C-alpha cells in the first residue's frame, strides 16, 4: 500500500540524512529499527508529509502523494504519533480526541481509546494538554489520538520512549489489539525487542540507508545477537 522510491533527504550544507531508500510496505505490521541518528524519524516524517524529500517519490495505494501536504495525507489515511508529543495551552484532551476522531466517531468513542491506553477517561477528558501532564501521560494520549483516528496507516515514532515499564506491557497489548481488531496497517519505529517481536516485517535503517529488511524470523535473531545494544539502549 505504501511505496517509497529512491527517497533521499538532504539538509543545508549537503548533509545527507537519507540516501536512496526503496521500500514497499504491504505487511500490516512493520517495525523500523536501527541506531539513533540513523534517519528513522526523518523517514517517518517524510511519509507523514512533515518533511519533503529532496529526492524520490512516495505512493499510497497507487497515488503519488509526494507533493501532498500534511493535511492532505492525513485525510488520505495517514496518522502519525509524535515521539515528543506537543503540548497546547487551553486545548483539552477531549478537544484533541474529538478532532482526531472526527465528527463521525465522537468523543464517547474517543474516551474508550483513552481507556485503551490505560488512562481513566473520566479523570483526563477535561484536562488541558499543558505542562500539568507528565511525559508518560502525554505519550499515552498521543497514542490514543492515533487509535481514535483509526486510519489505514498509523505511524508511531518510538512509542515506548518516555513510558515506564509497567505501561510498556500494556502498550504492547494496545498494538496487538490494534493488529487483531482493526484493518489498518501499523508502522512503528522502535528499539524494543518486544515490539519487533510482534512485527510482520522488520526494516533496519542505519546511516540513512536500509541496511537490512525481511520478515521477523529473518531479521530478529541476527539483530538480537549482533546489535543487542541497538535494541536495549532505550530501556534504561
Amino acid at each position: 500500500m505504501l511505496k517509497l522510491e529512491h527517497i533521499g533527504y538532504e539538509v543545508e550544507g549537503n548533509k545527507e540524512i537519507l540516501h536512496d531508500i526503496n521500500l514497499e510496505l504491504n505487511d500490516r505490521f512493520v517495525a523500523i529499527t536501527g541506531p539513533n541518528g540513523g534517519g528513522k524519524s526523518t523517514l517517518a516524517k517524510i511519509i507523514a508529509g512533515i518533511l519533503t524529500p529532496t529526492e524520490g517519490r512516495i505512493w499510497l495505494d497507487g497515488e503519488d502523494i509526494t507533493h501532498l501536504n500534511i493535511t492532505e495525507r492525513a485525510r488520505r489515511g495517514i496518522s502519525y504519533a509524535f515521539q515528543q508529543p506537543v503540548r497546547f495551552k487551553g486545548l483539552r484532551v477531549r478537544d484533541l480526541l474529538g478532532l482526531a476522531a472526527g465528527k463521525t466517531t465522537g468523543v464517547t468513542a474517543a474516551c474508550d481509546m483513552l481507556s485503551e491506553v490505560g488512562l481513566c477517561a473520566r479523570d483526563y477528558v477535561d484536562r488541558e494538554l499543558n505542562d500539568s501532564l507528565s511525559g508518560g501521560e502525554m505519550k499515552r494520549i498521543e497514542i490514543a489520538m492515533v487509535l481514535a483516528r483509526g486510519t489505514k496507516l498509523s505511524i508511531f515514532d518510538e512509542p515506548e520512549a518516555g513510558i515506564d515499564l509497567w505501561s510498556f506491557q500494556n502498550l504492547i497489548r494496545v498494538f496487538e489489539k490494534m493488529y487483531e481488531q482493526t484493518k489498518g496497517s501499523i508502522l512503528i519505529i522502535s528499539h524494543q525487542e518486544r515490539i519487533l517481536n510482534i512485527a510482520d516485517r522488520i526494516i533496519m535503517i542505519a546511516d540513512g540507508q536500509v541496511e537490512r529488511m525481511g520478515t521477523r524470523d529473518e531479521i530478529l535473531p541476527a539483530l538480537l545477537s549482533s546489535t543487542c545494544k541497538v535494541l536495549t539502549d532505550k530501556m534504561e
Partner: protein
Amino acid sequence: MIDQIQKDMLKAVADLDSLPVGAYNIRADGQSAARNTTANIDIVTKTDKPGIDIIIRPGTKKESVHIPVVISQSGLKECVYNDFFVGEDCDVVIIAGCGIHNCGAGDSQHDGIHSFFVGKNSKVRYIEKHYGDGDGAGKRVMNPESVVELAEGAEMQMETTQIGGVDDTLRKTTARLAAGAKLIIREALLTEGDQRADTDFTVTLDGEGASADVVSRTVAKGRSTQHYTSRVIGNAPCTGHTECDSIIMDQAKVTAVPELTANDLDASLIHEAAIGKIAGEQLVKLMTLGLTEQEAEEQIISGFLR
C-alpha cells in the same frame, strides 16, 4: 422596545434569547429597556449621574443579576456608573456585558464604571463579555473600569472576555482585599485589524491571608496593539500571582509590564509573562489530524482563549 440588532447583541454578550430569570436591567441605546428586581436584589436608578445601584441583601444565595448593555445607534457615547452593594454571606452571579453595533460614521462609545462592594464572607462570580460588530467607519469604543473592594473572607471571581470587534479599549481594574479575601481574574482578549487594547490591573492586598490570582490570555492579530500592565501590592502576609500569556500574529505588537511591590516580609508575589507566536509543531500536530493550517490556527486560538 428592543430591536433585532439589539437582540443579537444580547445573545452575543449575555447568551440571552429572552428575558433572563432573576434580577436584570437591560440598557439599550442609553435607556433602561427592561428591569426586574427580586425580593433579595434591588435595582435603583441613580439620581446624581447615569447608572444604577444594585443592592443585594445579606444572605442572598444562588441568585443572579444580568446587566447587559447594547448600543446600536451610531455616534452614541455614554458613561455609566453601576455600583454593586453585596451584603454579607451572599453567593451570587453577576452577568454583565456590552455589545456595540455600529454601522454609521460616528464613533460609538460605552464607558462603564462598575464598583463592587462585597461584604464579609460573600462569594461573587462576575462574567463580562464585550463584543462589537457593524461595518460603519465609526469606531466601537469600550472603556470598562472595575473597582473591587472585598471585605474579610470575601471571594470574587471575574471572567472577562473581549473577542474582536472592539476598536479601542482601556480595561482598568483596581481591587483592594481585606484579610482572607480572595480575588480570581481570568481575562481573554483578542484584537485584530488596527484595534488597540490596554489592560491595567492594580490589586492591593491589605489583609493577612488575602490572595489574588490574575491571569490574562490574549491574542493579537493584524496590526493590532496590546499593552498589559499588572500591579500587585502586598501590604500584609499574602499571596499574589499574575500571568500574562500572549499569542502574537502578523504585524501585531504586544507589551507586558509587570510590577510587584511587597511591603511586608511575608508577602509572596509572582508574575509570569510570555509572548510568542503559535508554535510550528502545534500546527503540524493538528494538521496530522486532518485539519488545514487555517483550521489548526483557529483551534489553537479558541482553546487558548477559552
